[in-house]
């Protein structure tokens, strides 16, 4: 892992006497490679290395008896600083029914996460309504209805002949009439470059006015995480991110890329297929996972 690699680099350097700028730069190269192998975006890595290099070249490291440890400490602190966020709770401060809209690429885990969020909110004393607004994917509405049944949480009745924007508006009216606290909207997966479908999301947001537009991203997303997240954010002004499939062995560098490019808080992580497998995001745990 990175810690071992850096120890190895410094061990070789010890023979050369006191540490210098150029040999610390050698260790920064190891950090760059480790972050790239963890799927952090190339440009994000460059900017990250620039941000830590001042500290890495400072007295704290050069005069230290354990320079490798010092560098790791600096990297860890910077990662936590970037990925942490005070504002990572769900924003439910609005007149009910509060809208939460889930968006993202195909297969990232939105429908399952809608179920998890409904479960989470009910545990916190809210009465959620699940809204199936995916009229494209075969059996998507059935999928959300099945999850609702498993949880005994109501699902708004929609069908594939309807328009997603109209579904969401009708669901909000229904939620208001029937005193639901939260509407959790499941949208169809789509490419960030699909103008027509991205415009559809913008219309839903305009019609329904959700307090949360959550970008659901697969933790194992590669280099494109930056462009994908930036596009969703530019078009929709997302309020937060949920990283799914964190129960795998992906290093999860996409987390750093997404936070870096959007500045929006990572609010939850999905850690399994079951509907209770949603956890709060912990930047310190993510930092050590990325560093491997």
């Amino acid at each position: 892992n990175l810690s071992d690699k850096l120890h190895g680099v410094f061990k070789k350097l010890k023979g050369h006497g006191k540490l210098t700028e150029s040999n610390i730069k050698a260790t920064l190269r190891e950090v760059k490679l480790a972050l790239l192998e963890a799927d952090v975006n190339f440009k994000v890595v460059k900017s990250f290395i620039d941000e830590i290099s001042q500290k890495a070249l400072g007295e704290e490291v050069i005069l230290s008896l354990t320079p490798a440890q010092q560098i790791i400490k600096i990297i860890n602190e910077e990662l936590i600083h970037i990925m942490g966020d005070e504002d990572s709770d769900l924003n439910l401060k609005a007149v009910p029914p509060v809208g939460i809209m889930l968006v993202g690429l195909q297969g990232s885990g939105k429908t399952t996460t809608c179920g998890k969020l409904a479960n989470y909110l009910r545990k916190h004393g809210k009465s959620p309504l699940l809204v199936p607004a995916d009229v494209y994917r075969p059996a998507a509405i059935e999928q959300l209805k099945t999850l609702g049944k498993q949880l005994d949480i109501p699902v708004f009745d929609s069908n594939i002949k309807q328009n997603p924007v109209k579904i969401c508006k009708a669901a909000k009216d229904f939620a208001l009439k029937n005193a639901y606290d939260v509407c959790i909207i499941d949208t169809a997966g789509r490419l960030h470059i699909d103008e027509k479908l991205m415009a559809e999301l913008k219309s839903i947001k305009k019609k329904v006015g959700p307090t949360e537009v959550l970008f659901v991203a697969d933790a194992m997303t590669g280099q494109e995480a930056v462009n994908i997240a930036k596009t969703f954010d530019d078009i929709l002004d997302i309020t937060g991110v949920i990283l799914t499939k964190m129960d795998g062995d992906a290093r999860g560098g996409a987390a750093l890329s997404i936070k870096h490019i959007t500045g929006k808080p990572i609010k939850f992580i999905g850690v399994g297929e079951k509907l209770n497998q949603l956890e709060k995001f912990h930047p310190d745990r993510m930092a050590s996972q990325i560093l491997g």
Partner: protein
Amino acid sequence: VFGKKKIDAELLEELEELLITSDLGVKTVQKLIASVEDKVSRKLLNDASELKNTLKEDIYQILAGDEKPLEITKKPYLVMVIGINGVGKTTTIGKLASQLKAEGKSVLLAAGDTFRAAAIEQLEIWSKRADVGFIRQAQNSDPAAVIFDAIASAKSRGIDVIIADTAGRLHTKVNLMEELKKLFKIARRELGEDHIETLLVLDATTGQNAVSQVKIFHKEVGITGLVVTKLDGTAKGGVIVGIADEFKIPVRYIGIGEQIDDLRVFNAQDFVDALF
């Protein structure tokens, strides 16, 4: 990158960035750059355009070995479709069924994902769209029973190809990998190894974790073919270069969209051209 004329450190760094951002991965990129640097030092490459062509050729050579289309060589032939959650297995089966039917084959889809909400319903809709046979059991029934049932039905009805859907599973989940191994044990017992294609589906948007997926699925059940989906997005799927180099498993198809016709036979040259 390649408009410039001479080869220098800046050019090589731009090249490194191009390949890394296409998800080729550090190890593979270092190997490709080292080989190009070697040719430069031996004066075999003189300008940027020669550099580009050499690099394209090197990558092409790695991928060309993986360009082996699926051949239905026995009857009934079973295609087991496996992979992690959400990569596009069920959708790919719908597309493949339609393609094989167009080639004159009789096809039966086996609803082997008995676990995920509405998975059986999703595959049934695809079987109707492709106008092929469909076999299922109750939700939460044993997937092995569905596979067994499908094989027996195909044998008695003289069906050419069975395509079996399986539940998405992370390669790190030991109990789910054990369940998968059991499915293969049954299939191999009922049909024989030479009647089976084991297709691992990968999502082009995935980064280096795809290597771990291939490594573990291959170790546990033996992969005979790969499918890379979602290449209609902006991700280049460059991770398959390192995978081709290390595992030499053929890439059978690529997925380029969500409709029934959005499946293409893998072409190494097209793939390399799209990288640059």
